[in-house]
């Protein structure tokens, strides 16, 4: 029998759809279904928030009248949903690979800085979900060759726009924040702007790649 997702009523008006136990080796395929499920639910206009996380979706209903209906329909929706019904946007993130830790990361892996740049920028990353702070994307796809343990001493301030690697993940900091990841580059792309019509550039299910800026002495510091 195929393992089924777990579905819980968290409150009278919210549900947790949890597929994180289904197949830890193929998180991306499961996540594609999560995005499609979220997109379908959004189209019903019955939810105030739909929050994808790692192979799960938390659904916040506008009215508690609909809780039981969704508890019942979610399993069959999951079985029927086609990942092709959801399509994210692709973003090019222009990156100056001159972060203060790029040489550390290169040395750690016995690579040159150029090789690190090459590997990091030749990958298509999937935005699994956002969290931690507005506009912070958890990305899927960092090449194993670049997995690097976090810094022993987190920095008290990682500047906005930093492109960084922490363990098996890579990401971009939308705002100044403390952080323990290795900074390999910087982008001027604005990821979060509360005054903009669309405050976050990147949405769950989008894809992105880093485009190295050819340096002619340009310096963002």
């Amino acid at each position: 029998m195929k393992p089924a997702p777990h579905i819980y009523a968290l409150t009278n008006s919210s549900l947790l759809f949890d597929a994180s136990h289904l197949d830890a080796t193929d998180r991306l395929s499961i996540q594609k279904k999560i995005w499609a499920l979220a997109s379908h639910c959004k189209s019903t206009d019955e939810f105030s928030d739909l929050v994808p996380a790692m192979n799960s979706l938390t659904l916040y209903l506008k009215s508690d009248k609909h809780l039981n209906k969704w508890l019942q329909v979610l399993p069959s929706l999951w079985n029927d949903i086609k990942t092709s019904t959801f399509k994210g946007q692709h973003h090019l993130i222009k990156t100056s690979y001159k972060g203060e830790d790029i040489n550390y990361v290169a040395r750690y892996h016995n690579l040159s800085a150029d090789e690190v740049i090459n590997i990091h920028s030749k990958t298509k990353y999937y935005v699994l979900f956002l969290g931690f702070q507005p506009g912070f994307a958890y990305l899927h796809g960092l090449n194993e060759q670049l997995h690097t343990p976090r810094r022993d001493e987190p920095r008290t301030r990682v500047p906005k726009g930093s492109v960084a690697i922490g363990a098996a993940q890579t990401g971009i900091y939308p705002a100044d924040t403390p952080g323990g990841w290795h900074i390999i580059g910087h982008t001027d792309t604005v990821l979060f702007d509360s005054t903009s019509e669309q405050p976050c550039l990147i949405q769950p299910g989008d894809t992105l790649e880093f485009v190295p800026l050819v340096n002619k002495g340009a310096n963002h510091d």
Partner: protein
Amino acid sequence: MIKVLKSGVLLTIQDFGREGYRHLGVSKAGSLDPYAQIIANRLLNNNDNDAVLEITVGLCELEFTCDTVIALHGADLQATLDGHAIYPGWTYALKNKQVLSFATGRAGLRAYLAVKGGIQNAEVMGSKSTDLNACFGGFEGRSLTTGDEIPITPYYGEFIKVGAIAPAQRKLIRLHPSPHADLLGETLLSNFVSTAFKVSNNSNRMGVRLEHKNNLGHSHSLPSLGVSPGSIQLPPSGEPIVLLNDGQTTGGYPLLGTVIEADLRQFAQFRPLDTVEFKYVTFEEAAKAKQKLDGHLHQLSLALKNTL
């Protein structure tokens, strides 16, 4: 305008907060005690969602530079108007140049100050609330400080003094069941509900941390899942965290359950060292508790309709 002479411990502009942006990592923000906000606003015939000042602990001083009417609700932080005591639950007419001061209270932590017409700061992402972590909304995305001038609309109309009592406070908090009951196990969950917790000093608008002497430690970590105000996280240390309005949108700790909507406002008023206990309830009991609170508000509206 309201001029901040002294900002005290934490003074912010809040309304009901933000909705529809949690998938982008944006927190709710908003009044931690929304019922206090609603009652204060209704006493002034404002809209329920009009922006108010959330005053944490007190020790602040505000000068009004125009006439208005105010309503005070939530904790009694020993407020005075030009040196004369005023009380939560009531409305007061204020004249230009009057000074409203807050000392601090013996019970409760947060007072709510509504002004006639609501605070007139700009909406950002659908709300006037201050997001203190992401630094936007409210007043320049930060807590208020000495010298700030908060925009309000002067009011010279008639004034009828009205008052309203607050729904009762409680220390036994009702919870929805844990989605991670199998993972955490019956023993841990029964230890949890038999523990009297103390509110930690290390609590804020993001969450209330709870201290205790029992052993609730564990070694589970989970793939990130969506969390919201009311989610109770259990980190491996075994010290639960009740997430509040400024809390993050996802987290990787198992959940002990979720505080029912009717009881979440209690966490706005717990002070460090206050005792808190928990009890799991059914979805029907939770709905009933919410109806009771809404009934309180409905009664208030009916009574005010005949007065205002």
